[in-house]
């Protein structure tokens, strides 16, 4: 994909350079034309009014050439503008990509380092599909968390919840972000007391971030922080909220969230990322 784009840009650059050379060369060309045109006028003394029209028509070719050069310059400038804009979006894409990679990397690291202890069961199961490894301890914790869920609400099928969550999460993996938002919103509505609702809110935030809607993302992370204060995702939610607030330009709230990660979860990987952000 990048190769195609860069090849495209390269070809434009080549085109632009060659056109540029041509445009520069064409200026002396028109000067040359003048040198030819002037003596031809001098010969025609004394000047008759109709000779004016005659000489003008012989210069039409020159005029066309001049127009042509001007059009070329105009088009060149427009092309240059497009190259600049393409470069800019490419650069931004690269940065986004890197950001996402780091984010994913961080999550993998955090998963492999921390044997899941409490509520984060099904996401672990789902994530395991992504990263191709499975931790037996997470299976155990699955059971515990689901049991807790059952206690909390009687009319509620943990299997359905788990399946729905998995489905929503699969959409995220497939980058069907719009669909995943719909699924996650439906999920939090269907299982308001579910064991995974905090995770769902967190992932809503992640998806909003990917889509560039930092303000909605901040709301989602904020929801996790305030409604699920004991959730395992809190350090991550705080860090992500900080990033989202920075993107909106709310420096105060961004710093508040990032500082909380640093002071309350100094050992977390989120804290490491937060430190980079603060600096």
């Amino acid at each position: 994909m990048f190769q195609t784009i860069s090849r495209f840009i390269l070809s434009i650059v080549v085109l632009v350079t060659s056109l540029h050379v041509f445009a520069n060369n064409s200026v002396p060309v028109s000067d040359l034309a003048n040198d030819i045109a002037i003596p031809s006028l001098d010969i025609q003394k004394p000047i008759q009014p109709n000779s004016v029209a005659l000489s003008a028509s012989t210069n039409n070719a020159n005029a066309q050439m001049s127009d042509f050069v001007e059009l070329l310059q105009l088009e060149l400038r427009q092309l240059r503008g497009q190259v600049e804009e393409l470069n800019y979006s490419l650069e931004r894409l690269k940065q986004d990509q890197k950001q996402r990679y780091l984010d994913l990397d961080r999550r993998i690291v955090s998963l492999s380092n921390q044997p899941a202890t409490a509520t984060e069961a099904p996401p672990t199961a789902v994530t395991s599909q992504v990263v191709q490894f499975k931790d037996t301890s997470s299976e155990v914790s699955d059971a515990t968390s689901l049991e807790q869920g059952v206690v909390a609400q009687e009319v509620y099928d943990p299997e359905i919840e788990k399946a729905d969550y998995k489905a929503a999460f699969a959409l995220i993996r497939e980058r069907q972000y719009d669909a995943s938002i719909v699924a996650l919103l439906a999920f939090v509505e269907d299982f308001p007391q579910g064991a995974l609702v905090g995770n769902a809110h967190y992932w809503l935030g992640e998806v909003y971030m990917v889509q560039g809607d930092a303000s909605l993302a901040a709301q989602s992370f904020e929801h996790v922080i305030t409604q699920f204060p004991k959730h395992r995702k809190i350090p991550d939610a705080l860090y992500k909220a900080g990033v989202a607030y920075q993107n909106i330009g709310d420096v105060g709230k961004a710093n508040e969230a990032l500082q909380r990660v640093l002071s309350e979860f100094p050992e977390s990987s989120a804290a490491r990322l937060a430190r980079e952000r603060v600096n």
Partner: protein
Amino acid sequence: MQVGNLSKIIAISILVVFIGACSSTGETADATASTQAAQMAAEAAALAETQALEEAQVQAQAQAQAQAQAASDAAQKAANDAATADAAQQQQAQDAAQALAHVIYFDFDQSTIKAEFRTALNGHAAYLSQNPSARVVLEGHADERGTREYNIALGERRGNAVSRYLVVQGVSVDAIEVVSFGEERPVNAGQDSASWSENRRVEIRYINY
């Protein structure tokens, strides 16, 4: 409106110069013609909008002087050589140049010369290339939209486009000077697209015929 005024002034000037050239050969008469032309031009301009006033005076005076000079030259030649044919021809060519459109208009943010102005520019080009002592100033202008210094550059780009056109038609680069006034000297102070289109222009001013 500006064009109307200018052509009126030009018409008056031509008349004055014509009378001056026919009636006498003396220097005093030329001077009178010059002042008369300036006065009449000033009177005509006083009727015009205040906007046009300044420019009209400057142009009328410049033209009156240039024409008086030309008339004087022609008259002297007539007296010395008794070859009136040349002078008449010269006068004819000058009249023809004056009769041409002196203002070229442009599209928004554009400096391309529209086809409708080519005839006029061809005429100016012919006159300038056949009269090596003739000199023009191409005054480039922009409308008020956009920043002032950028508009100065845009006005110059328009002036340069006209200049390039004339040069391609055989006019010596030395006969042309481009001066840009950007958005500083609008002919129409209005704030609608019609007014703006009147302001996006290059004015061709002869400083010597």
